[in-house]
């Protein structure tokens, strides 16, 4: 309705300093946004300097990048519902079920690979729908609903595998999915790249992301703004389950077997990456690239520690400290930036004791 309003003169101007931000402000802001990226570079540089012959090698980087793909995809899966502050604790178990189910179908039931993949994805969609139903229809808090679903999935995984590793008759056509190369780039990395690009575009470039955020801020308000809350919740949970299933397929194809108890251990790293990632790029908002950077930051550091022969417990401690450090540095940067802006305004005011009156334009006829 553009022409409903014949623009009258502005009545009230907000009293604000409208000059450009200072370099210091800009720097502090950038630190908050790109601090973790910088830290990642720093970490790689440090470890490369410390063990140049083993850490700073193409093989090592390649392996770290490839090994982490499964964890990163699960982290991305966890990030999706987290946009609307839904905690999906079933992504780990969904990964577990996916890898077990796929290998069982292919190796035990002799189902063609493509059909098994379709079946696993169908199962993932069903799990996503179930989570949505529990959260929306039964009004359960997302974490409890997905913990419960996850428990059921782990049970089903045990049931399907009979508690045993399935490792016989896994065909090359299945293991080939994850083990090949394309133009020298390992396939898992290409898959990850494709997933990240799609998610980043959908979440950041289209209205999807901000609509999901709005549900976190005010679910009822979002609904009243005409957002189909049910549909977005469904998309988030189904998306998360499907991503987790893809991660599971990738894992099974890489390992070439179906494990009866894989799943829960992915939860912590996934959520840590998602939350740590929320401190990057768009501080305060979980986001896909942030999750990716956070996950790789942690894994490059841990690989470096391992190259230096650090003790096992260090990894666990480091994980915790990295998250605490990352999140709080980003938080501090935001606050510091605000304080710098205030000081800037104060300085200006001190220079011009009576600033141009907010409404002065209007007063001069």
């Amino acid at each position, binding site marked *: 309705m553009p022409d409903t309003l014949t623009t009258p003169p502005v009545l009230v101007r907000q009293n604000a300093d409208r000059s450009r931000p200072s370099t210091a402000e800009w720097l502090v802001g950038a630190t908050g946004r790109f601090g973790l990226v910088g830290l990642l570079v720093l970490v790689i540089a440090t470890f490369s300097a410390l063990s140049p012959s083993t850490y700073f090698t193409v093989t090592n980087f390649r392996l770290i990048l490839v090994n982490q793909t499964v964890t990163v995809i699960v982290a991305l899966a966890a990030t999706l519902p987290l946009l609307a502050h839904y905690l999906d604790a079933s992504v780990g178990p969904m990964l577990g079920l996916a890898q077990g189910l796929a290998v069982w179908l292919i190796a035990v039931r002799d189902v063609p690979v493509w059909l098994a993949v379709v079946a696993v994805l169908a199962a993932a969609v069903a799990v996503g729908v179930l989570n949505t139903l529990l959260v929306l229809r039964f009004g359960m808090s997302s974490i409890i609903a997905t913990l419960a679903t996850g428990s059921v999935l782990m049970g089903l995984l045990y049931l399907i595998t009979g508690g045993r590793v399935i490792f016989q008759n896994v065909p090359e056509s299945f293991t080939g999915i994850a083990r090949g190369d394309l133009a020298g780039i390992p396939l898992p990395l290409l898959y990850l790249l494709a997933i990240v690009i799609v998610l980043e575009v959908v979440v950041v470039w289209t209205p999807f992301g901000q609509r999901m955020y709005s549900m976190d801020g005010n679910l009822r308000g979002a609904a009243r703004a005409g957002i189909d809350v049910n549909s977005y919740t469904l998309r988030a949970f189904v998306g998360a389950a499907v991503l987790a299933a893809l991660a599971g397929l990738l894992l099974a194809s890489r390992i070439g077997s179906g494990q009866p108890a894989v799943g829960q251990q992915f939860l912590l790293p996934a959520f840590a990456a998602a939350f740590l990632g929320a401190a990057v790029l768009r501080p305060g908002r979980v986001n896909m690239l942030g999750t990716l950077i956070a996950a790789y930051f942690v894994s490059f550091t841990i690989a470096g520690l*391992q190259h230096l022969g650090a003790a*096992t417990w260090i990894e666990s401690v480091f994980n915790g400290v990295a998250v605490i450090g990352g999140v709080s540095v980003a938080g501090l940067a935001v606050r510091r930036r605000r304080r710098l802006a205030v000081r800037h305004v104060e300085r200006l005011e001190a220079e011009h004791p009576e600033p141009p009156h907010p409404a002065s334009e209007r007063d001069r006829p």
Partner: protein
Amino acid sequence: DDSPSADGPGPVDDAYTAKAADLVEKGTGGLLYFEGAEADLTLDKIKKYQDWSGPTESAKPVAGARLSIIVCKIGTSCEEVGRKAAAIAQQIGWSAEVIDGQGTPEGFQKAFATAAARKPSAVITVAIPENQAADGIRELQQSKIPVVGVSAIKEGGSVGFDANVSSRETFQSVLQVTQAIAESKGAAKAVFLWDVGYPHLVEALDTSRRVFAACTGCQVLEVRERTLAQAGDPIEMQNITTSLIQKYGNDLQYIFTPYGNGVESVIAALQAAGRTDVKVLSKNAEPERLGSVAKGDQFADFGAVRGWNAYAAIDQVVRLLAGQPALPDAEQGIPATIFRQSNAPDDGKVDWNSYVDFAERYTRMWSAAK
């Protein structure tokens, strides 16, 4: 006291029971070994160790090899074996380093990646199942780096180790049931509180059940499956134990377990229920379990001579680097022993060298080779 429970069937003093009793007697404080494939084990194939049962011919170690040794998890007996192998390698002029596998498939992946980045001459893994590290193994094999799996059996998946050195898990399990058969004079009633999540444990379960079934007066009350995660959950293990106690009452006499994890919770639950008469058997001779056996809380534990497998692993590497075929696992000849309250060390530390001087045998063999 050694008498079986009153309401069970009477002692069946047949030849099988006598054989079992004989083996137990020889194996307590002494060593037992077997011939043939581990999966086909029967009581008849088990012998008292007298003479050297290992290999007698090998190759000359190549000069200047570098090893990466991936252990299942630092702080366990895996690490002990890994460190031992590293020491042996250094003795023959090689370099070696130990990498932590952190006990999970993801940890194994990371460790394999670290190993691959170092481009070693060969890799030894300790207690890492083939199926959980298949991609890592394949990656190394593609770079022409041989991989020797210690404490790992041939699983028959699409990717396998270049050579295996078993740590006699199946053998130890068979000794577990043998102990029970002997102790109960052929009337044992037992629960297998087992983990079937690992192929080598499935093999151990199948074989030991077969051996146990040959005892006519014995009875498997139940095979109760649980996962490693459950074993690590003290409350879960106590619940399971409680349910077994309630379900079988005084019929419950023996509990077989595949590893030390969670056994202390089982024992705590038995003690809480006042059932100190139930005998818990475990294997792998982990120090805390041996301590528990020495204290009388746990009935018995079993172990294959540790350190021997480290030599066997280096020997496999020696052969592979020399271009020879690997030694089949059945010919490793690693013996095992039984720990009871009488011979278990209080502090859990076993001086394996005092049983047999395998180190001297292997060194001599290598220096003798051309």
